[in-house]
């Protein structure tokens, strides 16, 4: 009997050794490799704490860590913070920092860096930070590994804003010296992330190399990430097809080429990794002007637009009809509702004509009721074609639409400063929480001349503002959901903006690369888990 156990233990030991031998190379195989990602366009800077322009975050998020990460279920996960605790009243948030984390220059990361990054950076220079952290009155640092955020009122939405993309943790000993808005390290970033900044060859590429001292042992797996800039869409597609580039996201993949790419043997296409971005496309109506100040006219326009046509033929299937300013990505948290007035109906044209007739806008001899000017969004050919479609769709209900095409600077000024337009288009990111991404579309507070990507239609409603204020401080998700349900219903009934669709961006990934999109931030995450086969 003893012998049997001896044999068993020998067999077991042998088995374990063999298993280990089998597993070892598998683990070792993960190491190494260079990923070429296409970043479009070239970022103007790498200061993700100064600008939220897309390409900046795609590169900088690999260099700067955040306190937290988020998994695909939108749940916070430890990163620089090993654990955290939100007090019952929602007014004290305590982070316990990981020990032994060092910046790329070899200095340790402590609570002082976090305090600096929130109070002096995020709250001051970040475009969205002052809003996100407006309730934070102080950051206390009782010891080098404890950070306590003091809030004057609960801010439940803040829990989703601690990623390295949204709130990067900067080394205080570097960035506290000199003017943060013009710091020499803006374009030579030093963080604690899995990749170190090495080189920026303007007009060509940015090179990031593996951080050998990263706090996640054995990670990152890749040796290098090269961010390349290729301005011509067809050349980008060709580079991905040939395997010269391995990754492209957020509009770097031309929508009309996504299908071709997905058929290519080198590339897979995914639409995941936008769950914390959630862009919603909108036809913006200037409600300050007649006849768009008339709700019947706005409803008629909403009925006249075929969202399915827009998604299928302009964005080549990448999208989903929207029901309001909020993306259905907030459905799991209970904040989203689609129980609002639906404008995507089969007899839309008839309803629209009826509404306009009843509102007193009769068709004249030339078949038109009135004219509108549509300013095409100067962000690429999809938006030009969207404008051309809008002109045709509204033509069907007797609204003559002329199109104007201006450059980005003039379009921004016309839309958000001068408010000198009839209709235009845009898309707003919903981001981590409606407080950050939805309120700005329709709240009265967001009607500010010169503030871009805010409430451009000029419409507001007292009750909606009240509900938004309540939802901002309410920690209970179910209650927040009720507030939003009412607000979204009012918005849909007044339809100051026609939310056409939730945009889905195709992300192209070379098949050799695994675990690329593992976060709802997608391309804006740190890629420490990416490996090659």
């Amino acid at each position, binding site marked *: 009997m003893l012998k049997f156990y001896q044999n068993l233990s020998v067999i077991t030991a042998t088995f374990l050794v063999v298993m280990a031998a089998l597993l070892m190379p598998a683990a070792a195989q993960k190491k190494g490799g260079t990923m070429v990602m296409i970043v479009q366009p070239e970022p103007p800077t790498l200061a993700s704490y100064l600008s939220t322009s897309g390409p900046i975050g795609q590169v900088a998020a690999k260099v700067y860590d955040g306190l937290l990460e988020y998994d695909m279920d939108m749940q916070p996960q430890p990163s620089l913070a090993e654990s955290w605790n939100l007090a019952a009243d929602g007014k004290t948030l305590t982070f316990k920092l990981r020990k032994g984390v060092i910046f790329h220059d070899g200095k340790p990361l402590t609570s002082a860096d976090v305090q600096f990054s929130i109070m002096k950076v995020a709250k001051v220079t970040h475009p969205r930070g002052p809003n996100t952290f407006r309730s934070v009155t102080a950051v206390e640092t009782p010891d080098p590994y404890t950070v306590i955020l003091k809030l004057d009122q609960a801010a439940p939405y803040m829990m989703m804003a601690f990623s390295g993309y949204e709130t990067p943790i900067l080394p205080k000993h570097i960035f506290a010296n000199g003017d943060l808005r013009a710091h020499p390290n803006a374009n030579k970033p030093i963080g604690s992330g899995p990749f170190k900044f090495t080189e920026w060859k303007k007009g060509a590429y940015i090179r990031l190399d593996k951080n050998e001292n990263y706090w996640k042992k054995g990670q990152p797996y890749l040796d290098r990430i090269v961010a390349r800039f290729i301005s011509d869409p067809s050349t980008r597609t060709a580079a991905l097809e040939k395997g010269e580039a391995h990754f492209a996201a957020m509009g770097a993949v031309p929508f*009309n080429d996504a299908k071709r790419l997905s058929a290519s043997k080198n590339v897979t296409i995914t639409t995941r990794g936008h769950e914390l971005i959630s862009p919603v496309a909108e036809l913006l109506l200037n409600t300050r002007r007649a006849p768009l100040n008339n709700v019947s006219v706005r409803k008629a326009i909403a009925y006249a637009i075929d969202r399915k046509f827009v998604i299928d*033929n302009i964005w080549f299937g990448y999208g989903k009809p929207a029901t309001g300013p909020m993306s259905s990505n907030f459905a799991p948290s209970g904040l989203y509702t689609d129980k609002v007035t639906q404008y995507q109906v089969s007899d839309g044209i008839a309803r629209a004509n009826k509404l306009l007739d009843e509102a007193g806008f009769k068709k004249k001899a030339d078949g038109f009721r009135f004219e509108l000017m549509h300013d*095409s969004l100067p962000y690429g050919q999809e938006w030009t074609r969207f404008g*051309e479609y809008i*002109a045709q769709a509204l033509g069907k209900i007797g609204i003559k639409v002329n199109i104007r095409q201006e450059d980005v600077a003039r379009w921004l000024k016309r839309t958000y400063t001068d408010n000198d337009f009839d209709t235009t288009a845009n898309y707003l990111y919903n981001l981590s929480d409606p407080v950050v991404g939805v309120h700005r579309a329709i709240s009265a507070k967001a009607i500010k001349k010169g503030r871009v990507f805010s409430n451009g239609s000029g419409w507001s409603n007292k009750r909606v503002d009240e509900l938004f204020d309540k939802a901002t401080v309410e920690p209970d998700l179910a209650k927040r959901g009720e507030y939003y349900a009412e607000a979204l219903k009012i918005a849909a009934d007044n339809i100051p903006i026609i939310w056409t669709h939730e945009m889905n961006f195709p992300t192209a990934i070379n098949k050799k690369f695994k675990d690329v999109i593992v976060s709802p931030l997608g391309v804006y995450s740190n890629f420490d888990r990416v490996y090659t086969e």
Partner: protein
Amino acid sequence: MKTFWQRFLTNPRVVCGLIWLGLVTILAIFAPLLAPSDPFAIVAEPFKTPFSEYVFGTDSLGRDMWAGLVHGARTSLLIALIATVSAVAFGTMVGGIAGYYGGFIDDILMRMTEFFQTIPSFIFAIVLVAILTPSATSIIIAIAIVSWPPIARIVRGEVLSVKGREFVQAAIIAGQSDSGILLKQVLPNTLSPLIVTGSLLVATAILVESALSFLGLGAPNLMSWGFMVGSGRSFLRDAWWLVAIPGVAILLTVLSINLVGEGLNDALNPRLRDL
């Protein structure tokens, strides 16, 4: 000695050019009859191949390519003609005055002409259209502004050579006014080089208009060939006809105008006569 028309119309290249131009002109004039629907109207599924239900297929939004082609002919020709006429009129005025009066006025006008000539013309046109915001008017203005200087120089040269001739001197002695002499005696003699240059200018104008539209600076509410090429460009690998059909139309038209222009030059140029 052969007459002008004999020399002109027996040139086979001219005949080829004229046949195509005649065809395009017919398309342009009768566009509303040949394609009654709005060229921007979405009539069918996008990307229908040519020679199916629609003879030239449909584009990326499901617009009829045939309607685009005939209405585009109208826009492209009209813009090119108006721009050319404006450029020729302005250039002739500047060149005529400069050559006829000479001296200080000549200096000033010619330095101004050279100033415009030294600016790279296409980039200048892009800047002008971008500043004025794209529309038919701004495109015509831009093309005319970049096209008039060569006309002015040609006219000035011709005026200088004609000015000293006896019939002009006679007119001066007879007491005709300056404008009368310039319009009735001098300019008619500059006509032949003007016609040749002007006709070639139409071809350039069509190309400039197409290039502007291709770059997204076309008139957004007017269907033109350049607009069709520009909006079809990104689909070249999947739907070749979006670019090929208007592209071939532009190519043939510009080629035809050049052939006719060369033919005019051969027939009008006295040095080539009876060779």
